[in-house]
């Protein structure tokens, strides 16, 4: 069928040609041999057959060419589109011997194009992955709290995160591609970056602790500098990570001071106890009255030491459990009345008059009853300690509904606090110098009050004082709506 189909046109052509020639031959033979008529008709028929053969040949050739061109066009169209084209190429090759080599070449090109398409597709996917990873890393760098800066091998700024902008005081949109000495004002950091870049990629990352004065306050940074490697181990730039250690240093310093203060405060009564015992053992006192005084002093100093340790433990306990405190509506008027009952005997023994102006009990604050009692008691005990006999103490509890706060105020007519000591009285272990002899103390009472009021209850503590006239300690807590 294929053979017939393939050669059908050729057969038709041969039949027409043979018919044409037969007609011509018949006309010639008939005329020459028999001188018969019909010569012209037969010649005409033969010529017509030959002309028909010619036209048919032309038409067949043209048709074949057209089909080949159509296949090639179709193939090219498919090449232009993103479609597999192997099946069409095979058909095309079978259909046209003329276009065969061309179609084969096109097949190769198509195959190569297909491979290129696949490679391009993989490349696109890889590019998208790389781009997503780059954006992710950039987002991470932008969101880290440490300042991250990247410079080029020409010491130009190429990347900085928000922390770096804030810390080093520049705006990345204006600073990108500018030299670091134009945008980083701390000369020491600029020199560190330049030195790291000069040292090259073979050096280990550098870690440097750097202190500077950031406008208002001293800051300490731990700076990590790493040279970034380019192709063939060349220097591509420098990455700088600045970790702000100011707060860590403050905490560290605070701990050192705390230990120093604790040891000092504990050693003082211990020194007295040790000295008094040694005196007794050495027989430096022999009369019973002095001996008894010595024992009493040892006892009171031991008691002082005990109180101090209790205070330290109490602060430590409250600070470590502050997140477990449950605040409930409490009437401060009830709290004050409770505290007044406890401290009344002390006040009476010093002939100190306590007057009170208390808000109605329905004004309540969210508080831990025991802790807020402790805070008020500390304030009242201090007032009694530093008020000479015959003085006055006033306790006020007032509700300010407009501001939504309840204020508690403890005023005394005591010795007061000098202006230069006011800012220090809430520091742990600080004891006012001027009237230290008036009373014993650990220097932990007021820090505890401040911690209870501000950290645990979210209130605000304040103090006003005038030397020799008295002090007023007050705090405010949010009213329960």
């Amino acid at each position: 069928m294929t053979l017939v189909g393939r050669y059908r046109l050729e057969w038709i052509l041969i039949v027409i040609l043979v018919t044409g020639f037969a007609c011509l031959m018949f006309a010639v033979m008939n005329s020459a041999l028999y001188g018969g008529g019909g010569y012209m008709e037969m010649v005409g028929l033969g010529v017509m057959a030959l002309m028909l053969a010619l036209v048919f040949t032309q038409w067949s050739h043209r048709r074949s060419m057209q089909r080949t061109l159509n296949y090639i066009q179709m193939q090219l169209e498919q090449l232009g589109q993103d479609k597999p084209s192997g099946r069409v190429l095979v058909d095309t090759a079978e259909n046209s011997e003329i276009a065969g080599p061309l179609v084969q070449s096109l097949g190769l090109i198509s195959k190569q194009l297909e491979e290129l398409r696949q490679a391009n597709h993989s490349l696109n996917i890889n590019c998208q992955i790389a781009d997503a990873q780059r954006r992710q890393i950039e987002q991470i760098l932008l969101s880290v709290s440490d300042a991250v800066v990247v410079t080029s091998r020409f010491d130009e700024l190429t990347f900085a995160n928000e922390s770096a902008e804030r810390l080093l005081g520049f705006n990345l949109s204006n600073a990108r591609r500018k030299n670091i000495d134009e945008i980083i004002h701390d000369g020491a950091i600029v020199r560190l970056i330049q030195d790291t870049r000069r040292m090259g990629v073979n050096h280990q990352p550098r870690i440097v602790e750097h202190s500077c004065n950031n406008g208002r306050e001293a800051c300490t940074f731990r700076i990590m500098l790493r040279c970034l490697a380019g192709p063939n181990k060349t220097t591509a730039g420098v990455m700088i990570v600045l970790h702000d250690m100011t707060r860590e240093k403050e905490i560290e310093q605070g701990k050192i001071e705390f230990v120093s203060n604790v040891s000092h405060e504990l050693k003082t009564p211990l020194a007295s106890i040790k000295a008094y015992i040694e005196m007794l053992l050495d027989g430096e006192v022999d009369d019973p009255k002095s001996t008894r005084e010595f024992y009493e002093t040892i006892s009171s100093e031991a008691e002082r030491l005990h109180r101090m340790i209790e205070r330290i433990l109490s602060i430590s306990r409250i600070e470590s459990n502050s997140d477990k405190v449950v605040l409930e509506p409490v009437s401060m008027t009830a709290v004050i009345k409770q505290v007044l009952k406890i401290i009344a005997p002390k006040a009476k023994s010093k002939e100190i008059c306590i007057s009170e102006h208390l808000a109605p009990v329905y004004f309540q604050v969210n508080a831990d009853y025991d802790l807020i009692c402790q805070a008020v008691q500390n304030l009242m005990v201090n007032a009694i300690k530093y008020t000479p006999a015959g003085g006055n103490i006033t306790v006020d509890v007032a509700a300010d509904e407009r501001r939504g706060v309840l204020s508690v105020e403890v005023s005394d007519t005591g010795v007061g606090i000098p202006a230069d000591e006011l800012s220090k009285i809430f520091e742990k272990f600080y004891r006012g110098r001027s009237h230290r002899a008036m009373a014993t103390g650990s220097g932990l009472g007021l820090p505890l009050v401040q911690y209870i009021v501000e950290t645990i209850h979210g209130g605000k503590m304040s103090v006003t004082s005038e030397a020799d006239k008295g002090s007023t300690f007050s705090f405010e807590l949010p009213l329960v709506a």
Partner: protein
Amino acid sequence: MEKKLKKILVVDDEPCILHILALKLRNAGYTVITAADGEEGLELSLSEGPDLIIADYQMPYMDGLQLCSEHRRRGGMPVPAMLITARDFDIDDKMAEKSGISVVLAKPFSPQQVVEIAQDLMSEHHYGGNVLAGVKCNNEK
């Protein structure tokens, strides 16, 4: 007999320490004058001309180091001085020497040790020619 003439100024804001040191030194035969803070101590050191100053480091108004350096700055006799402190780690030797401190004694201390050091400081060896021995921290007892 000679040591009874020696006068020692003891300055401490802790009444117990002041009391015990005064008693121990008096029992050892010295004349003792006392002050409860740095300023009062400075006044006494300048007016009374003691042979030795024993001062607490941390005191109201003026600490022991300031007291000793002020004593010298205001023309007081360059007498030896002993600093008693619970913060011995806070005190730099050079700073102490500059203030005229001969010995830094850490709390808690032995009263007998104080007497021995006082005796030593007021001997010819230390007290002779205005040149004080280097600061020594004495708390081995």
